[in-house]
């Protein structure tokens, strides 16, 4: 049963994509660590860090695609789940600083000392343990998605209204996390990380492992997403997107279907955030900004929603473009992004991968038709002739 579920996921394109990701996970760190800096094959650390960031964004886009591309829920607040996963990781990294902070307090992170707090708030308990923190990376975004989805889907909030409340959710969280007395570092967020699992965060080897983990987690989540979408559940999901009332009248509980997908997607986003934070070295409330979540929608649309590979390609391409543009013509980036979204909506509504897939299928259909035609010419006479002969 379970093996069937996983085996179904391993369709050609997914295997290739996961294989490429695993190769990248090994090759890029190897080229970074093992080649001398003046070699033509050397990948500088800053490039690897940048690529690691793109992979985290790709995982976030994949998460959004699961709810938007397959289930039709346009979430404009997925950045919130990403940021919460990031904060869970950030809290673990803060606790690892120990007495090496500016104030040298062994029990409290610097910002708490600065706020004159005497003891650790209860919600920071346990975050000094890596397994607990990793559990929270999944549980916190998952719980938020569960409660949010429970109310929204049960009350049948749909379409634009749902998009607006997801946007409101991430905005509200941003405002809350900006407050110092929330206990998450306020405006400055969490930063100045030292160790992860006893290894220096900034060390070359640690960076390489973090990069490799990003690629591996992306590959794993891709396979899980593929298993979900290729199961009967995945077909129901597309049914919900295309004809929700039909699904309901067939006897499916649409709210449960949406809730499950939303929670899985939020967990994917949480993982992406947790991998992102140690690689960029900071998490602050800016990650909750509504504009961030909207950017994820653009990546997914550019790559092709409703395909699993599309959002990954979209996230990497758009962010590579962003890195280039913000370096070369910083003032034009936002215009380029806006223009890109309009262009994709107008000319490539299926996105890059969707359009390629569509063209490929059309060509295959044409070929099959031509083949059938040929077979008919060579072998049996066309139906009309047969009918005439029979008459």
């Amino acid at each position, binding site marked *: *049963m*379970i093996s*069937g*579920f996983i085996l179904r996921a391993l369709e050609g394109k997914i295997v290739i994509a996961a294989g490429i990701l695993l190769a990248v996970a090994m090759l890029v760190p190897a080229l970074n660590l093992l080649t001398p800096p003046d070699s033509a094959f050397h990948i500088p650390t800053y490039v690897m860090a940048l690529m690691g960031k793109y992979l985290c964004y790709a995982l976030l886009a994949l998460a959004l695609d699961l709810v938007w591309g397959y289930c039709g829920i346009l979430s404009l607040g997925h950045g919130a789940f990403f940021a919460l996963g990031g904060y869970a990781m950030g809290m673990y990294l803060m606790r690892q600083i120990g007495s090496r902070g500016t104030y040298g307090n062994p029990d409290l992170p610097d910002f708490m000392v600065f706020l004159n707090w005497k003891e650790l708030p209860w919600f920071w308990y346990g975050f000094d343990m890596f397994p607990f923190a990793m559990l929270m990376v999944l549980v916190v975004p998952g719980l938020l998605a569960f409660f949010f989805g429970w109310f929204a889907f049960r009350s049948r909030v749909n379409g634009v209204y749902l998009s607006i409340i997801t946007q409101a959710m991430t905005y509200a969280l941003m405002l809350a996390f900006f407050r110092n007395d929330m206990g998450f570092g306020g405006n400055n967020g969490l930063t100045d990380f030292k160790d992860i699992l006893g290894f220096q965060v900034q060390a070359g080897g640690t960076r390489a492992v973090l990069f490799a983990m990003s690629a591996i987690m992306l590959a794993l989540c891709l396979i899980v997403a593929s298993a*979900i979408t290729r*199961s*009967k*559940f995945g*077909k*129901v999901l*597309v*049914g919900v997107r*295309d*004809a929700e*009332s*039909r*699904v*309901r*009248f*067939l*006897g*499916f*509980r*649409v709210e*449960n*279907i949406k809730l*499950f997908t939303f929670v899985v997607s939020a967990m994917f986003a949480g993982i992406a955030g947790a991998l992102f934070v140690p690689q960029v070295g900071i998490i602050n409330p800016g990650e909750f900004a509504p504009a961030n979540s909207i950017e994820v929608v653009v990546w997914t649309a550019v790559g092709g929603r409703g395909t699993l590979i599309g959002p990954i390609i979209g996230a990497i391409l758009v962010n590579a473009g962003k890195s280039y543009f913000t370096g070369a013509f910083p003032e034009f980036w936002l215009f380029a992004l806006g223009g890109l979204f309009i262009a994709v909506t107008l000319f490539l509504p299926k996105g890059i991968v969707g359009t390629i897939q569509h063209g490929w299928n059309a060509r295959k259909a044409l070929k099959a038709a031509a083949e059938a035609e040929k077979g008919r010419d060579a072998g049996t006479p066309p139906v009309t002739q047969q009918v005439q002969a029979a008459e």
Partner: protein
Amino acid sequence: MNTIAETRTKSLLYLEDVSVSFDGFKAINSLSLVIEPGELRAIIGPNGAGKTTMMDIITGKTRPDTGKVIFEDEIDLTKKDEADIAQLGIGRKFQKPTVFESHTVWDNLELALNRSRGVFATLFYTLSAEDKSRIEEILSTIRMTHRAHEYAANLSHGQKQWLEIGMLLAQEPKLLLVDEPVAGMTDAETAETAILLREIAKTRSVVVVEHDMGFIRDLGVKVTCLAEGSVLAEGSIDFVSSDPKVIENYLGR
């Protein structure tokens, strides 16, 4: 003549004194209706007579303000939602054909199949030999075996209507509610649909809402005429169509 208590004991669907109003407009006005097991019933009436609203009430989309809606003598449908009611065995075909256009005909039927519909049951579902033969059987009933692997989006209007009927069959309902099945069909398709519905009604109850009087004559079943939210006349097509109130309200002089 039967008293209401007597008819209740053998009814599949029983509506008594059901009323619902939207913003003061009485869409259904103390409607009573009994469908017996194995019955094929046609419902006619002018636009706004409450035909679709009645289906909404039976399938749980709309809650009535007052009245009883009882399924199989004991289940109160007014307390259930769409998914519950569908699982109890009431299938519904919409006025506009509603199929999953980005799935193949086969997948449409597979989704409709009356199997466990939970999240995890569907995640780990694998097509069994039994389910496969059931889908093949339905494909031949709706005459679409040769198009099984075609995307539903590529079907003609009439074929979509049939596919939707096939999906309802896959659901194995005890009661099938069919809203205007022959709207937009050619004459040949209409005649075939009448044959199909009569065949389906051999094993379950079917309620058909239709405007096409020729089609209802083809079906040759008991007819209920609704107007302004309540029953105007009930009986054979000849009886109903000669009723002066029906002529006045619906058929026109």
